[in-house]
């Protein structure tokens, strides 16, 4: 809402209150002033001039040589190129030495040999938004009203000596979507006197009810409808003061009838509609629900298809307007209109909201209906508009208003208790102060014991509960006067849940081993959502799509984080940042339903992605590119941190998007919790990135599993004995499998088995490899002898020979 300081001054005594202070205090008490604009924008030296003579320039077709009187003394010569300049006009003149917006200084000039002492201005040159300039002046200078006094400052005639306050209104304060509402608020904040317009009408003897009847089908949809008839209207431009007020509020002047309805909309917040009575098509207004498939051509010349949940104004047979949203083209006011049917009504907010949403029509009117207008000001607004039509459009107002529904309703009563207010606010506001605050707000009330029974004015639709009144008392009292205290009550320990603690642990671990945390979007493309989930095809879950995506890029909820992390690699490698190791913890969304009827499964996942060098220390020639085992090492360390490493298994698999020979699923207690591998080289090429490795884990499963508590185990008291063995194995036998085989065969005495060498290639038979294991034997009860060890060790050897077809090497 744009509020003119000068206009507001008509209703509230603002003596001694500058626009800055007004903005500041209004903001502090609840209505944010988002900006103050000075309309003059530094303009000086612009006066009212009278064009006494206007002749064609001798040397230029499109220029005129004008003699303009700009005060006492001789007229000055001004060259003007506007097509609409003419003798006898009153015009705004920027005299020599004047300054226009943008610090544009006017100097004496010579145009094609003729002297020019200034400039006749268009509204645009005076800083008015080109969209607000009335059509007739859009391509030329502005022609002022005839009564403007020559030599006087032109800005005050054009209301350009004004300040505009831009209010950022929260949805509850629809009462300030009009000047009178803002005046009430200002008066309350500053404790100033309020003077509101009181429409007075000189009505003719003829009665409006002879011209029109009104019938409302359902008062639930339309609790009040009033119609006035005004005859002998002369449609034409509205006066300067009205035009300039509309312009300053961001509304373009059209003609006096439309301008009046817009003016009253701004002043009272009441949307009005003026029909051309002669084009209305009947003497009957009927407000009803639309029939399915019914159509109406609206003012913007669009054919609108209506639904039964839309409310329409009809002439008894066909719709002439969509209630509260837009009028019909057929009964639009034109230059030929002489008789006006003026509508002032109260429509149910939700029905207007639905229609304006369905039809994609948002207007100054529909927003006000939706947010709630002053039910008890509808009647007065109609009179105000009729008064203005008589005053400035020469209209004759017919007697009375033809109405359906009660003109006024009783105000709601809400009780507020002083003690409760103080308890909620934490203050000690005295009863006397509450009296004062309610009076400042202009609320009527009764007071008994500690109870204030407040009659809430109909303009304040936001006040329905005691808390609402407590807020009113608090904000007028001043929130800066509320003390700062700390809550009293039972002490709580607070803290993190086990899963939240584990998540922090995972983060710290990954960051300490060198990964950066990334944060990416949950919404992605269908293609990306379908990739790298690491599941076998038959397990694939269904998509979750947004019903009206803003773009294809953000249309589907991600099922895995990996594609987003591939984007991170791509982004960085495109910028020559080649060594990337990042992780992300976040939700992924899965559903097994074709049609989503309940919550999808939201899984907390951990994904990490690696590309380029893992270690690089140039001057010592150390260079270690990322490979599968670097990534697996990170994962192994993570499982140790989480206390599940003994229960983890890696199983070689082939998965879509992954390298067929370098991919494994990760299992916890035999259940798949994730995938690790190299990005398929074909995908790598498509992404245009370097060799890349990745993993993803379902953290919910990992975090939910029970973990043994930490128990100290005694330090070894006896020496252990190590034996190394090198086994020649078939290529397709996995080293890890043999390792677990050895461990199992070694029984209690075999404490540890580690792999310390792998040899493939030269000197090995085709299809064979050599893997060397180091076995550590230990007995916590006594010092082991060679015989003790030999007994177990030979058992281990024969086991691996038999089980894995292994032979001892060298």
């Amino acid at each position, binding site marked *: 809402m744009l509020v003119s300081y000068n206009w507001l001054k008509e209703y509230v005594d603002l003596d001694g209150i500058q626009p800055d202070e007004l903005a500041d205090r209004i903001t502090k008490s609840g209505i944010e002033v988002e900006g103050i604009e000075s309309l003059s924008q530094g303009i000086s030296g612009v006066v009212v001039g009278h064009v006494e003579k206007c002749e064609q320039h001798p040397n230029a077709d499109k220029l005129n040589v004008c003699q303009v009187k700009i005060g006492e003394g001789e007229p000055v010569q001004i060259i003007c190129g506007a097509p609409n300049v003419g003798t006898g006009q009153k015009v705004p003149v920027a005299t020599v030495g004047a300054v226009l917006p943008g610090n544009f200084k006017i100097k004496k000039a010579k145009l094609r040999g003729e002297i020019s002492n200034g400039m006749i201005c268009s509204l645009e040159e005076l800083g008015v938004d080109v969209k607000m300039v009335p059509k007739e002046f859009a391509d030329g200078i502005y022609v002022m009203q005839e009564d403007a006094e020559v030599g006087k400052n032109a800005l005050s005639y054009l209301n350009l000596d004004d300040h505009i306050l831009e209010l950022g209104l929260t949805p509850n304060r629809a009462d300030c979507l009009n000047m009178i509402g803002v005046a009430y608020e200002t008066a309350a904040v500053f404790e100033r006197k309020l003077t509101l317009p009181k429409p007075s009408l000189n009505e003719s003897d003829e009665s409006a009810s002879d011209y029109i009847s009104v019938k409302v089908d359902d008062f639930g949809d339309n609790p009040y409808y009033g119609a006035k008839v005004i005859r002998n209207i002369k449609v034409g431009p509205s006066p300067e003061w009205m035009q300039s007020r509309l312009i300053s509020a961001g509304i373009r002047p059209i003609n006096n009838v439309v301008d009046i309805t817009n003016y009253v909309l701004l002043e009272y917040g009441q949307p009005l509609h003026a029909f051309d009575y002669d084009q209305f098509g009947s003497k009957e207004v009927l407000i009803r629900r639309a029939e399915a498939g019914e159509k109406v051509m609206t003012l913007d010349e669009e054919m609108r298809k209506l639904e039964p949940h839309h409310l329409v104004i009809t002439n008894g047979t066909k719709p002439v307007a969509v209630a509260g949203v837009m009028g019909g083209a057929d009964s639009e006011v034109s230059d030929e209109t002489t008789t006006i049917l003026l509508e002032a009504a109260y429509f149910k907010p939700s029905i207007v909201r639905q229609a304006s949403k369905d039809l994609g029509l948002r207007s100054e009117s529909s927003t006000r209906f939706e947010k709630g207008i002053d039910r008890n000001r509808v009647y007065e607004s109609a009179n105000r508009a009729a008064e203005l039509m008589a005053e400035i459009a020469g209209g004759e107002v017919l007697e009375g208003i033809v109405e359906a529904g009660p003109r006024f309703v009783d105000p709601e009563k809400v009780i507020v208790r002083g003690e409760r207010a103080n308890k909620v606010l934490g203050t000690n506001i005295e009863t006397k102060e509450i009296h004062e605050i309610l009076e400042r707000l202009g609320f009527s009330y009764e007071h008994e014991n500690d109870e204030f029974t407040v009659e809430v004015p109909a303009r304040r639709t936001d006040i329905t509960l005691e808390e609402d009144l*407590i807020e009113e008392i608090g904000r007028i009292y001043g929130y800066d006067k509320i003390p700062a205290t700390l809550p009293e009550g039972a002490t709580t320990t607070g803290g993190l849940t086990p899963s939240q603690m584990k998540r922090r642990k995972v983060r710290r671990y990954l960051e300490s081993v*060198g990964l950066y945390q990334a944060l*990416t979007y*949950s919404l992605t493309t269908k293609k990306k959502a379908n990739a790298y989930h690491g599941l076998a095809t038959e397990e694939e879950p269904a998509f979750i799509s*947004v019903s009206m995506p803003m773009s294809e890029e953000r249309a589907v909820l991600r099922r895995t984080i990996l594609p987003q992390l591939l984007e991170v690699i791509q982004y960085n490698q495109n910028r020559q940042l080649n060594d990337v190791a990042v992780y992300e913890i976040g939700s992924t*969304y899965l559903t097994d339903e074709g049609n989503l009827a309940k*919550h999808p499964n939201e899984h907390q996942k951990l994904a990490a992605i690696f590309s380029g060098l893992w270690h690089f220390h140039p001057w010592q020639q150390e260079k270690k590119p990322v490979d599968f085992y670097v990534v697996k090492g990170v994962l192994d360390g993570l499982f140790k941190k989480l206390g599940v490493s003994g229960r983890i298994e890696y199983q070689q698999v082939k998965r879509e998007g992954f390298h067929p020979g370098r991919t494994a699923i990760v299992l916890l207690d035999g259940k798949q919790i994730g995938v690790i591998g190299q990005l398929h080289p074909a995908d790598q090429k498509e992404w245009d990135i370097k060799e890349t490795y990745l993993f993803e884990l379902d953290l919910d499963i990992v975090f939910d599993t029970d973990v043994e508590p930490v128990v100290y185990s005694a330090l070894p008291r006896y020496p252990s004995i190590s034996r190394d063995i090198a086994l020649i194995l078939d290529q397709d036998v996995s080293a890890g499998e043999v390792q677990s085989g050895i461990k199992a065969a070694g029984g209690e005495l075999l404490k540890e088995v580690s792999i310390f060498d792998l040899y493939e290639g030269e000197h090995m038979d085709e299809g064979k490899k050599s893997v060397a294991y180091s076995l550590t034997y230990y007995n916590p009860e006594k010092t082991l002898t060679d015989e003790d060890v030999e007994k177990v060790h030979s058992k281990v050897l024969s086991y691996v020979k038999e089980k894995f077809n292994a032979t001892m090497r060298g």
Partner: protein
Amino acid sequence: MQERLMTLQEEAVEKIEHASSLKELQDIRVEYLGKKGPITEVLRGMGKLPAEERPKMGQLANEVREVITTKVDSKQEKLEREELDRQLSNETIDVTLPGRPIRQGNAHPLTAVIEEIEDLFIGMGFSIAEGPEVETDYYNFEALNLPKNHPARDMQDSFFITEDLLLRTQTSPVQARTMEKHEGKGPVKIISPGKVYRRDTDDATHSHQFMQIEGLLVDKNIRMSDLKGTLTLFAQKLFGEEREIRLRPSFFPFTEPSVEVDVSCFKCNGSGCSICKRTGWIEILGAGMVHPNVLEMAGFNSKEYKGFAFGMGPERIAMLKFGIDDIRHFYANDLRFLEQFKRA
């Protein structure tokens, strides 16, 4: 004999002093103190001396031996140190060469800000509550006093999935869910951080996905002054001890009264700068007293219980704290951006 011993001592000391290597010194040791050395020889010849002179001479011989031994030992120590020094000076390295890099990542700046805030409130006895990002219309709107067709729904244009499911537009549904779980019994003290989604076109100041942190305290005697006190403490811990806060009336459907909370500018201390747009105050939070409808819908008796709630945007706080100028940086994951937050 005595003379001989003294000469030997002099000779030996002279040689020891001139010895320039450990080898030479070892030779001197053997020469004088060895079993075939002159002192042993002297001692052997003692038998020829009269009995009364023997002890005296024996003592003298031992003294000479002692002197030589001490001299040799100390010379040896000296030579050894010189040897080591020589050796070590050959091992000198250029300490200005760079060290072997230790890999070190760090948290995303938004996580850093969120954790700092979480920890701050954990210290005041709050728990961390989380909830689903795909929410029902009920929890995202209705339970928060935003019935269907409420104009305030326009404040948050949402990504709907079905008629009833949507990407949550705020973390407030977690408040509703948590209160329900408490079955009408306080206190409820939670902080709920998380991702939220709104239909905004991404630009320097808007993002269709962003973070939010909300707090909720429901108990029997909660007052708006408690909200002011709690948030003052919060602002001081996050932005510095000298911070003050200012409450301005505002509107949120789920609180009544509702306020915007400004913190005095931490850059200029309120004198006015570009960060606070010359007002001395920075808008940081939205807050208010929990609306009685919200309490009732979640199973709390609003006559018995009151509460306060507040919410803020970690992006905004991170942008202010670190001077970041474009919200898209948080989601681009440029390594040159991420690595700047090691200390955060």
